[in-house]
């Protein structure tokens, strides 16, 4: 069972065990985090220019795609660390850690024609190691990009259409509008968590009278899909946001909007290869075109192709076709009835109802037989959360299972302890057994003698060193043969021992990857194959690894890859730590804090080191900003400027983490960027500011084109002795239309009236926030205060709605 946010922490014991086995240098900073692409996808047969984002990318970071059909070109080096933009959370919400701070590159994906819809995993590596990447989604509908500059709802073209957008700031709500050409069903499918975007989406639909028509909250972390009826000629606005109104530039999404009925699931949810079968499609409007769950039967011809596991079926109805549904392919006669003896091996698709909250099936088995019992629900579009139990001939529970991580659908292997009749009980844990879509597909099959190999998707081998890479084996149906491992396409200079064999007595093998001292720093996608002989047959399986990225996996196998990214790395010959590591120092907000940083060099390293903000931060709150500081070879200690915005809460301990980066040649002479995380964090307890600019509240409603006067007040600590400079920051959209010349604040005056001029243009109309900003210096570093000034500009001919002495006629 899965609840809001819990999906984030679903971690298999297997993965955890492997992580424990892999040795990594602690200080060295592997490019990490779950990356993102914006736009987050594109249509097959097109070239899409994107920004890829991820944390701690060096300028020499390389990008990889395992799918050879896809071309990924890097068009620029990573930019600076990108900060969270205002607004910020305050009070208790500011306790939550914000998303990691990324760097971005420009890149281009080239997708071949006819490529099926679905995710492409891209990955990263550099001289610090092989890290994670992200997901780029291939689509099959026309695509548009969200216009982030719009302040009004963006108009949608004809359906189907996919919008690539993002929730860039907290409190952001993206709005899309369309006028219904006819009365029909519309489906909005929001891809967010499936792209690796760590937010829970909300879809809200409003009619032209701004009344909410329908809403759907993704409280289970599975991404929301919403179908609703529209009336001809009415205008609808679709709003997209996070449940908690969170936002960041990595919160990318794809909104697929289509018209027509929407298939939820099917009975049976699979068909035998090469045969025709009558399928009951259950969905919204599939029979009448109305917004209700109903069903319709159609005869479907199933492909005979043994290589295919499923195929996309498009239901044609008089009310439109909607998106296709993925029917599973099987080698069984797929049954459709409920509580009856099952002819095991076999498969049955059935429905749980309010009256019938569980189904029981029986099968005969013999002592020592191995069976695999699996039950699909989420995978086939059902709303059920299935729990499976197997009872032995004595009536006692032999085994049970709820989820098979990362999927909520269970798969249960059992070894039968005795001859006799066994029972399988299928129960629902979701409580959603009230609809026609409460469907599951149970598959009972004898487990074939086989083995599976699993490892981690990335391995980092230090140049001149070794890495123990664990290959875990799962043996099925009495498989007890030795497995011979073969590594293909390792980086230059990396080798593994000969005759790598996983003996029948062990659960995993630690393979030592050795890198020569003269190897270059490089990275490749490698492949690890296992071969075994069972009787006269040779079984060959590729080692698979679970990729990160999909936070709403609907299929346990959906994120497995056979491409293992192996990188050779250069150990950082330096160490960086703050003098006051993790100890709190009280600092003024609105000012620059200068913590002392110690640089330790070793192995004779004399190159320049650059300090910058780390991608992963902890208690990094409300816009605290570090700097990029180049440190010369003679420097052993320096003051690192950290700017603390004046709006920081004084009740919170704040921190900032740094990284140190240096250019170092690899053994082949190629310059690489090596980075290490600072040991410890800069910790700050915030006190009140030394400088405060105020704009006494007033309601400014003006005609565009009018010049007006603003009164500003300045308060400053007697610690400040330097001149104070005043400027007015104008929003980009109206830059050039509002003018004010920066000036020095007159000494001995705490109040100042400034004149601001505007131009009478239509773009000016609306409510704008101008920012007055004063800057001075304390100990040669900036002290800043800002205040927002709301001004509403009316069209030139319209009179102000309120009398305001600031308006000059």
């Amino acid at each position, binding site marked *: 069972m899965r609840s809001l946010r819990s999906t984030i922490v679903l971690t298999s014991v297997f993965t955890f065990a492997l992580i424990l086995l892999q040795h990594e240098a602690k200080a060295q900073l592997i490019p990490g985090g779950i990356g993102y692409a914006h736009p987050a996808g594109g249509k097959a047969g097109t070239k899409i220019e994107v920004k890829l984002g991820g944390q701690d990318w060096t300028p020499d970071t390389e990008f990889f795609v395992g799918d050879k059909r896809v071309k990924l070109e890097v068009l620029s080096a990573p930019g600076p660390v990108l900060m969270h933009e205002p607004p910020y959370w305050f009070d208790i919400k500011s306790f939550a850690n914000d998303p990691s701070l990324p760097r971005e590159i420009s890149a281009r994906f080239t997708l071949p024609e006819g490529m099926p819809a679905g995710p492409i995993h891209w990955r990263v590596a550099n001289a610090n190691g092989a890290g994670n990447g992200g997901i780029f989604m291939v689509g099959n509908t026309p695509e548009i990009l*969200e216009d982030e500059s719009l302040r009004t709802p963006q108009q949608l073209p004809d359906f189907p259409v996919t919008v690539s957008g993002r929730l860039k700031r907290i409190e952001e709500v993206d709005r899309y509008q369309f006028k219904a050409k006819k009365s029909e069903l519309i489906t909005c499918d929001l891809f967010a968590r499936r792209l690796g975007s760590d937010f829970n989406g909300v879809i809200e639909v409003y009619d032209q009278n701004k009344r909410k028509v329908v809403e759907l909250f993704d409280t289970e972390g599975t991404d929301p899909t919403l179908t609703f009826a529209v009336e001809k000629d009415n205008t609808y606005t679709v709003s997209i946001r996070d449940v908690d109104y969170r936002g960041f530039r990595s919160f990318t999404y794809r909104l697929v909007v289509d018209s027509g009925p929407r298939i939820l699931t099917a009975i049976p949810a699979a068909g035998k290869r090469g045969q025709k079968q009558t399928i009951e499609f259950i969905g919204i409007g599939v029979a009448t075109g109305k917004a209700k769950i109903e069903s319709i039967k159609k005869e479907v011809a199933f492909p005979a192709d043994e290589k295919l596991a499923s195929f996309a079926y498009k239901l044609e109805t008089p009310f439109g076709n909607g998106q296709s549904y993925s029917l599973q392919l099987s080698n069984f006669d797929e049954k459709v009835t409920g509580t009856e003896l099952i002819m095991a091996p076999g498969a049955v698709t059935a429905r749980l109802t309010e009256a019938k909250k569980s189904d029981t099936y029986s099968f005969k088995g013999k002592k020592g037989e191995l069976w695999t019992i699996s039950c699909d629900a989420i995978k086939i579009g059902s709303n059920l959360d299935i729990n499976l139990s197997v009872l032995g001939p004595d009536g006692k529970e032999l085994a049970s299972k709820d989820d098979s991580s990362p999927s909520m659908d269970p798969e249960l292997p059992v070894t039968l302890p005795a001859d006799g009749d066994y029972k399988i009980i299928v129960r629902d844990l979701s409580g959603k057994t009230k609809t026609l879509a409460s469907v599951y597909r149970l598959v009972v099959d004898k487990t074939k003698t086989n083995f599976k190999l699993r490892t981690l998707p990335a391995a980092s081998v230090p140049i001149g060193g070794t890495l123990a890479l664990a290959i875990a084996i799962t043996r099925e149906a009495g498989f007890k043969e030795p497995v011979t491992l073969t590594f293909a396409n390792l980086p230059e200079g990396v080798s593994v021992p000969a005759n790598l064999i996983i003996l029948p007595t062990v659960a995993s093998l630690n393979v030592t990857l050795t890198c020569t001292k003269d190897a270059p720093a490089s990275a490749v996608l490698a492949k690890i194959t296992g071969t075994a002989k069972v009787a006269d047959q040779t079984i060959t399986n590729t080692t698979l690894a679970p990729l990160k990225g999909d936070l709403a996996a609907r299929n346990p196998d959906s994120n497995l890859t056979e491409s293992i990214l192996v990188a050779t790395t250069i150990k950082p010959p330096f160490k960086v730590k703050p003098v006051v590591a993790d100890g709190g120092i009280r600092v003024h907000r609105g000012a620059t804090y200068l913590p002392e940083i110690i640089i330790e060099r070793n192995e004779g390293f004399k190159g320049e080191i650059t300090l910058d903000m780390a991608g992963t931060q902890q208690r990094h709150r409300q816009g605290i900003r570090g700097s990029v500081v180049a440190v010369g070879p003679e420097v052993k200690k320096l003051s690192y400027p950290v700017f603390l915005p004046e709006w920081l809460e004084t009740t919170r301990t704040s921190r900032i983490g740094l990284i140190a980066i240096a250019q170092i040649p690899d053994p082949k002479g190629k310059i690489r960027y090596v980075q290490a995380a600072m040991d410890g964090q800069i910790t700050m307890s915030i006190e*009140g500011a030394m400088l405060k600019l105020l704009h006494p509240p007033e309601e400014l409603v003006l005609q565009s084109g009018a010049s007006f006067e603003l009164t500003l007040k300045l308060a400053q600590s007697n610690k400040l002795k330097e001149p104070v400079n005043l400027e007015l920051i104008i929003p980009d959209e109206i830059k050039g239309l509002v003018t004010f010349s920066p000036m020095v604040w007159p000494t001995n005056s705490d109040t100042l009236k400034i004149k601001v001029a505007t131009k009478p243009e239509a773009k000016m109309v609306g409510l704008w926030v101008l920012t007055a900003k004063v800057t001075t210096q304390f100990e040669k570093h900036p002290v800043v205060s800002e205040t927002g000034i709301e001004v509403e500009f009316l069209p030139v001919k319209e009179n102000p709605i309120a009398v305001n002495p600031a308006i000059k006629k």
Partner: protein
Amino acid sequence: MMNEPMKRSNLFCDGVSRRQALRIGASGFLGGLTLPKLFQMEATAATGQAAKAKSCIFLYLQGGPSTIDMWDMKPDAPAEIRGPYKPIRTNVVGTMVGEHCHRSAKIADKYTILRSHSHNDNGHTTGSHYVLTGNRPNFADGANSRVPVNELYPSLGSIVSRELGTRGSVPPYINMPHPLTAGGPGFYGAEHAPFVIESDPVQPDFEVKDLQTDERLSELRFKRRQRVLKGLEKDSVQSGRANTMATYYDKARDLITSPEARKAFDLKSEPEKLRTAYGHTSLGQCSLLSRRLVEAGCRFVGVDHGSWDTHFSCFPSLEKDLIPHADMAFSTLVADLQDRGLLDTTLVVMMGEMGRTPRINDKAGRDHWSQAQSVLLAGGGIKPGIIVGATDKTASFPTTEPFGVADVLRTIFHLMGIDSDKVYRTPLGRPVPIVSGGKVIKELLI
């Protein structure tokens, strides 16, 4: 794509929104006290008993001060216990304090160090709950992120507020710059909640928003606002309760315009030399403001000063920030109170929810340690210039009689003329004494 801009709506005839109108007289702090509530409380306040201390300033060093580095030095202990600081002499023969407390050393004859304060709650929120209410919390440390955390038991400030009521032109119980973690009123209800400043007095533009009217609002416009507010309330003034509330609103308005109240909060009127002596720090300026509020009649000022949870690299922050800030603020406050003739009637207490571990950890910090902590007390009937209690050679445990939380609270209440055995009943009828157990620490009294 951003939200559509908010449209101006719900404006009153003078361009003032309801939200703006109600902002006057409402602190906006959940669990804090609004001015109307305050006056309602004043109307029902109990009469105070004869007492040496009319007021108390409680400097709360949240996180747990390292008193082994300040007030209870152990120069003969091993280096990993005694730390890097040396003891220095004070103006009291035989009393030594840490080298970074040199200002306090010069006035050691004006305060007393209680070295044998001890309890066994090593959590921050749970320890704060215990120290400030005298009662154990019913939640685990870190499991309650609300402020205040004391939902049932009243804090000592709320008890003082209930027992002594108002005196002068300011609220009887004030917290600054933030609410104390466990400074809430508990079952006493909102009328005994602290009036929270919610603004850091170190800021150059420091003001208390409840007490400020917009300078641009003319008297005429201000009165128009009041008429608007009354218009909003007219549908409900038929009931007696609402009528009473309207009276309190009137009094709140009077306080806003009361020269005495505004004067009390006007830190800028203090000489710069004195402000500098207190320290241009949050603790320094809060201490100065506390003195002004006590002068204006406040009964209990709770100053919240955090960052004392020094697990890592504690010595740079202790010697650069924390100890000097506390040393300046405490020593100047005590001297300033005495200069003004207020020390005899003002009890000053400086303590945290716990102390720090005697042994320095592998991160060059000290961890939580509640078994032994030094508490500084001055004025209000405290015998000055002495040391009460002692700890062992590593400052780990008291070697004299340990004085617990109930003892400290009972002593504070005794000095303020409050009967600690008085019992109030919770809304469910459960009797709760002001202090359960403990005894007055007679060694501290004049």
